């Protein structure tokens, strides 16, 4: 079996996946560097399946579309990348499938965004629709801050930053849950704990094992199904009313979660890729 490995840079996560792929004597690894690829809309890559691990969302999404367009099986799919890479599309998918999430609003001008924020009540979190690792998140506690951030985003940012995605701030008690879904199973979960309101491990959040309860498994699988399924990391908030789905990540990072959970995540991912190629 020939497995195409779509990537930009090789981080520890990609290195672990490559090591796992190389452990299989019947797999031939084909490295597909998105910095050197050229697509002509006709040629099909000589691989049985593509495992997407690009660090750039826009490259990943378009490459997946083009690969699928010539009949190549991809993990994850283009549609999953499209829905997960844009928080507005994720929120729409969750809403349309009845998966609980924090209260959200979308607005296209600073003025309408301010109306939305005032209606929701403070604090809220303003997020770029496309972005990751907790970057450019703004917790807005009052009208002064709202006016300032909205003005800065509309004047200093590219047009993407004038699509305002507003989420009601959830008091999460210093931690959230990241649940790892592979196919139809929630294989592991971690708590991400921080004194900062942003708990991403990329921003210093500490990873510890989180037992996968039936509620966590159920909610993460529902969220995964809402965006199309595959290999996904689902971020959950614990609230008095139950779990809420914050985000779903389609090029999930797991390097800090193998040791603490005791689950060989790259092995599970590669097994899923092999199954997808054979299906």
């Amino acid at each position, binding site marked *: 079996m020939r497995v195409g490995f779509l*990537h*930009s*840079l*090789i*981080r520890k996560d*990609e*290195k672990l996946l*490559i*090591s796992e792929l*190389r452990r299989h004597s019947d797999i031939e690894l084909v*490295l597909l*560097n998105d910095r050197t690829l050229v697509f002509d809309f006709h040629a099909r890559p000589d691989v049985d399946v593509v495992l997407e691990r690009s*660090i*750039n*969302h*826009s490259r990943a999404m378009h490459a997946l579309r083009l690969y699928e367009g010539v009949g190549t099986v991809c993990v994850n799919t283009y549609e999953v990348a499209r829905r997960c*890479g844009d928080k507005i599309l994720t929120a729409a998918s969750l809403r349309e499938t009845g998966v609980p999430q924090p209260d959200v609003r979308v607005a296209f001008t600073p003025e309408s965004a301010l109306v939305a924020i005032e209606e929701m009540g403070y604090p809220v979190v303003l997020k770029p629709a*496309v*972005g*990751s*690792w907790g*970057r450019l998140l703004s917790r807005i506690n009052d009208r002064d801050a709202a006016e300032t951030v909205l003005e800065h985003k509309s004047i200093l940012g*590219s047009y*993407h930053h004038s699509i305002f995605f507003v989420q009601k701030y959830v008091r999460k008690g210093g931690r959230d849950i990241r649940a790892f879904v592979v196919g139809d199973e929630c294989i592991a979960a971690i708590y991400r704990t921080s004194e900062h309101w942003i708990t991403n491990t990329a921003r210093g959040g500490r990873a510890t094992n989180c037992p996968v309860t039936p509620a966590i498994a159920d909610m993460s699988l529902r969220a995964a199904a809402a965006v199309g399924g595959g290999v996904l*990391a689902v971020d959950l908030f614990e609230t008095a009313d139950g779990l809420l789905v914050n985000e779903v*990540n*389609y*090029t*999930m*990072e797991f390097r800090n979660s193998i040791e603490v959970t005791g689950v060989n995540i790259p092995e599970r991912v590669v097994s899923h890729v092999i199954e997808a190629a054979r299906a």
Partner: protein
Amino acid sequence: MSECPVCGGEVEISADPVEGELLECAECGVELEILGLDPLTLGEAPDAEEDWGE
């Protein structure tokens, strides 16, 4: 071992290096990328872009 292109310090290379692999120079802390394997060539890793992430 290979030489850091920024500070000239020694950079440890894994036993199975991959083109595009990220490394950190233990001496100056710069993030490096393996640009080529034969011969092994290091360069500064690109800066994070707006749509980078997971």
